[in-house]
């Protein structure tokens, strides 16, 4: 039975999902100004942005995109396992490991690019500022996501076909972080690669 403030278990489930979607709307607002700053720079200093982008490691960036999209698949399968009351630790573990692999590769890239970034000036310096700020903010979100998935993994036995809202809601967050990266990847790695 749901607690007094809900009329049905369906309503309770939708309330938790609505809460997460409302939070994700504020997250869109949180990332929004950085995206605005990026497109302003891209329009007014296009050559500097292309030059900055050519310092990015496209193989590592592409591999990371594939890893993160695969982690979304394993997260979706974890949510599905929870909905059916099946064991979900394997899927949660894979999701967290893929997230950690992404963070490891990202940190390696940051170190590799730091020399170029420190010596950049003008529009290129702006490109690097946005690159570190946006991928950094994204990595903070992913780190929180890995922590949440680890917490779910520890408490996996609590969830069953009737109660799995925490898994579902965490899944929404994880996929949102994936969507942010889906936009960051072409914005930083794929500028005029044909040159």
């Amino acid at each position: 039975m749901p607690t007094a403030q809900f009329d049905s278990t369906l309503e309770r489930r939708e309330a938790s999902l609505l809460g997460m979607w409302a939070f994700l709307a504020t997250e869109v607002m949180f990332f929004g100004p950085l995206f605005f700053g990026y497109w302003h720079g891209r329009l007014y200093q296009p050559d500097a942005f292309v030059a900055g982008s050519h310092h990015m490691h496209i193989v590592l960036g592409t591999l990371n995109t594939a890893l993160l999209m695969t982690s979304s698949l394993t997260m979706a399968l974890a949510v599905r396992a929870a909905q059916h009351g099946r064991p979900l630790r394997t899927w949660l573990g894979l999701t967290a490991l893929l997230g950690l692999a992404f963070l490891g590769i990202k940190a390696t890239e940051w170190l590799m690019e730091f020399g170029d970034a420190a010596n950049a000036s003008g529009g290129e310096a702006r490109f690097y500022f946005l690159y570190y700020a946006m991928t950094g903010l994204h990595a903070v979100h992913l780190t929180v996501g890995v922590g949440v998935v680890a917490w779910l993994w520890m408490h996996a036995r609590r969830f069953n076909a009737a109660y799995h809202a925490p898994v579902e809601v965490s899944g929404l967050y994880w996929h949102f972080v994936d969507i942010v990266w889906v936009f960051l990847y072409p914005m930083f790695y794929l500028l005029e690669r044909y040159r």
Partner: protein
Amino acid sequence: MTPPLAMSYVLTWLVLMVFLALTVGSSYIAMGPWNTAINMGISCAKAALIALFFMHLRGAGALLRIAALAGLLWLALLFGLGWSDFGTRSISPAAWSR
């Protein structure tokens, strides 16, 4: 609502991977401003796939769909207002940014 089949998630992932290959491949073909348009178009398609299938918006009720679109609506409003400023004025750099 019955949960979707596992196969639908795997198919979504496969299409995402195909889109990733397309976006990388297209960026090595010179198309001028169309490269950016194609890359952003593919990103929007990927985001839509993730939202509809992985985040279950496809089977969600009106309330969740509205909440999901609310953030994008506000973002569009603020981008529109922001551009109406930057787009209609010339930039005079401050002394420290010259």
